[in-house]
């Protein structure tokens, strides 16, 4: 027998065997409908959940849902674009009735499966979506900018504040704009300048842009990034410059003497927020839930060791006023 025929026979055998083996246990498939009291939650993410950042937040999100409600959870990490729709279909077929898609890149895949599973809710994080059983989530961009800008305006001695922001995109510039209004509201002489790294992760460019701001002579830096934030804080610390950071992390433990405060977007909290709506029966499709200070999903982190009490009081009072509707910070 020719080796090629041998190989062909063999491959056909393997595939046939797998098909037979695969068909047999199909009868034990979980029923598509679940008792309404409990829910099954699945999550899909494109990266690795041990990245201690964006993808880790997604895993924390469903784990916090499990802790709070005791619902069954499952997740798929490192999902390739070619498999997105298939993965969500697998979960929906098993009766998962809330499926989180962790990022903007799942828009088309959701539209490819959502109509086949009208009783399943698809939640896309950081996206505006459409569909009777599709919800999106966003942060109320601009809030964190105002209060961190205030803190910067109160803390600066030479009135020069530098912002190192990730990318020139609306969800970033909403915050950098309110940083300026926040700083000017408490310090009319504040000179606030923004520079963009062009990336959330680029360590080298992050250092360069931070150094350029330092060379301008700023005494306060607001660092709004992801991976490049910790080394940028190190650089500022060496120059004795105070820093406001955060967004994906609580920055206080990195440099308690240098950090003024952290601005925190609580991604796991958004997951719990959607689960809360599902539990309360208020989760409706064709909506985008916006999470911010009022929902407790955006907040200021731990104050640094060197921040005077009156600065903390002033900013905290402003947050209270804003929540009470007494302060307009220009955010919708």
């Amino acid at each position: 027998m020719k080796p090629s025929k041998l190989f062909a026979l063999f491959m056909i055998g393997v595939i046939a065997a797998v098909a037979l083996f695969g068909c047999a246990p199909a009868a034990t498939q979980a029923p598509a409908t679940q008792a309404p009291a409990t829910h099954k939650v699945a999550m899909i993410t494109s990266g690795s959940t041990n990245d201690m950042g964006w993808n880790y937040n997604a895993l924390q999100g469903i784990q916090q849902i499990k802790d709070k409600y005791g619902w069954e959870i499952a997740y798929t990490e490192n999902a390739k674009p070619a498999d997105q729709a298939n993965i969500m279909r697998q979960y929906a077929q098993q009766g998962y009735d809330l499926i989180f898609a962790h990022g903007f890149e799942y828009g088309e895949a959701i539209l490819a499966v959502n109509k086949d599973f009208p009783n399943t809710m698809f939640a896309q994080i950081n996206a505006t979506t459409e569909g009777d059983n599709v919800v999106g989530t966003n942060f109320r961009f601009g809030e964190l900018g105002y209060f961190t800008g205030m803190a910067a305006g109160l803390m600066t001695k030479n009135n020069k504040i530098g912002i190192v922001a990730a990318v020139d995109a609306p969800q970033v510039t909403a915050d950098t704009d309110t940083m300026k209004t926040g700083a000017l509201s408490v310090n009319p002489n504040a000179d606030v300048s923004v520079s963009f790294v062009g990336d959330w992760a680029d360590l080298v460019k992050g250092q360069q842009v931070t150094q350029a701001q330092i060379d301008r002579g700023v005494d306060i830096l607001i660092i709004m990034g992801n991976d490049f934030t910790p080394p940028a804080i190190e650089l500022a610390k060496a120059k004795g410059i105070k820093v406001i950071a955060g967004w994906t992390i609580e920055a206080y433990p990195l440099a308690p003497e240098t950090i003024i405060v952290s601005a925190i977007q609580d991604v796991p909290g958004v997951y719990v927020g959607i689960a809360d709506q599902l539990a309360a029966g208020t989760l409706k499709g064709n909506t985008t839930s916006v999470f911010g200070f009022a929902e407790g999903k955006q907040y200021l982190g731990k104050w640094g060791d060197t921040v005077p009490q009156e600065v903390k009081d002033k900013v905290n009072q402003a947050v209270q006023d804003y929540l009470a509707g007494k302060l307009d910070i220009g955010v919708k």
Partner: protein
Amino acid sequence: MPDSVHDQPTARARIWSWMKQPLASVGLPLLAIVAAILLGSIMMLLMGHDPLKAYAALGRGSFGNLGATSETLKSAIPLLLCGLGIAFSFQAGAFNIGAVGQMYLGALAAVIVGGQFAGLPAPLHMTLATLAALLAGGLWALAPALFKVYAGANEIISTILLNYVGIYLVDYMVAGPIKAGGANNAPISWPVLEDVMYPRLIPRTQLHIGLFIALTAMVALYLVMRYTTLGQRVRVVGQNPVAARHAGIRADRVFLLTFFVSGSLAGLAGASEILGYQVRLISGFATTTGYDAIAVALLAGFQPFLVGLAALFFAGLQTGAVAMEAIAKLPSQLVGMIRVLAILAVLAASSPRILALVRRLQGEEQP
């Protein structure tokens, strides 16, 4: 030992020689698969997972029902197209490792043509978008081939490097020039117009007519290799370029042509991913397909129909892996290991072939 044993085989020896080949062809691979399943089961047990449940999920997720099978067929399309191109070029001794980049360029061309020019008749528009992808992939592959022919640059290195250029080009394009408008402001391209998308073969699945494109390419490549002088030339150039030159074959031309065809097929793979079901181009839309396809082509010994089978096998493992993670709740790292074990088992079972091929390929490198 008396000679008579050799001269006059006993009945038992005759039966053995009659049995030997089927035994080797069925028993050996079976042994390899059983070994892989056992090893995989041990790993799962050590990590506290149920092997039965996991392998059931693998089977059910790959070929277990109509939906799973169509998903597997869908995943096999780009592997088959890229694998055919790689098989073709490797047979001519043209080592095209650049299917990744060529696929990216094909996808880029498809989304640019498919997302613009609204108002064209749908079949024409679909054809144009597909042809644009074919051409883009082919031209992207032609560049390293020209470097090789006119400057002597090693095509393995230049195709690998051009993969990165292709990937970064797509990253740049989806973040700027072809970025979708709208509320999300994410690095994602505009969508392909609805009527330019390939028709679906089975409702409620993503299986599309790209399957027929890939199967047609498979048959066409088989016919070219088997019955045409071009196929003959490709083989001669691949086996011995010096002899080919003496026989009056212009090896350079054959080299350029095989590279172009190889790139075109990868470009088609890119088009079928976008026009078939992905609709929009995103960064990292197919980072590994072009590399997996090299293994597919090698596993199949460059025979077109076997490339089809090998692509189906790889695709089955891919969709089965999804089910192992989603249904049996295995961690993705373990799923990756199980998947590689299965590939290794098949490789081991067909290793004499692979060794012979490697020997042949190495033989060509010598002057």
